[in-house]
């Protein structure tokens, strides 16, 4: 179970633990369930609790980016650790998804 915080059109999701192919599917389902609320235009993915991530995390973030773009919304990434940051940088995620300081 992920933690969410919703305020106005803003939704913050707090990812936790290991983010791999095995765990990404459940996280994706939970986030997309919240995103059924069409008033959400600003998705903030908080990576502060992520202890491991591989390319599945890149797919998860880019997938949510596509979803939000289609409705004219945006995605931001907050509190990426050094490893997460490196993978996001390597794969050009920051060209599309802003890093929130």
């Amino acid at each position, binding site marked *: 179970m992920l933690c969410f915080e919703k305020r106005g059109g803003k939704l913050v999701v707090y990812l936790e633990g290991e983010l791999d192919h095995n765990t990404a599917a459940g996280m994706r389902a939970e986030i997309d369930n919240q995103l059924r609320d069409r008033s959400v235009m600003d998705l903030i993915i908080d990576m502060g609790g992520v202890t491991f991530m591989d390319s599945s995390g890149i797919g998860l973030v880019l997938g949510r980016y596509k979803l939000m773009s289609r409705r004219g919304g945006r995605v931001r990434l907050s509190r990426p650790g050094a490893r997460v940051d490196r*993978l996001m940088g390597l794969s050009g995620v920051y060209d599309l998804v802003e890093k929130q300081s």
Partner: protein
Amino acid sequence: MAISNEIRVDFPSLGENEGFARLVISAFLLPLDPTVEELADVKTAVSEAVTNAIVHGYAQRRGTVRLHAFLYDDNTLRVDVIDNGCGIADVEQARKPFFSTMAAQERSGMGFTIIESFMDNTEVFSQPGKGTTVRMTKKIGASAQLRDVHAL
């Protein structure tokens, strides 16, 4: 170079074994006293290769993934991740950044690129219909040795 240690672990192609494979390789590496960074590099590379075996190699069916790791006495780690799945027709293309045959399933095509950037050397042997072996090596303690040289 002589082999100083070796493990071979076979497991079914289940998603929950991705985390297991990362634990196994971490435990195997620990006696070499790797840096946090080295450990994370190896765990990530192994996670990519094992995930590929599960999601691409065996796709919808169940098969066996083999994690075969060697330590050489110069502190080089070699990891082979082997599947007997569908194989890759064009390995050169598969290794290109952003190339994915499963983009619709939110795969980014970065797995091989990540393996290559975290390991010293990566080889891919594959035959369509037969399977794939990803062989990766990394010298552990290379950065520490460099620090020692600079300290002299």
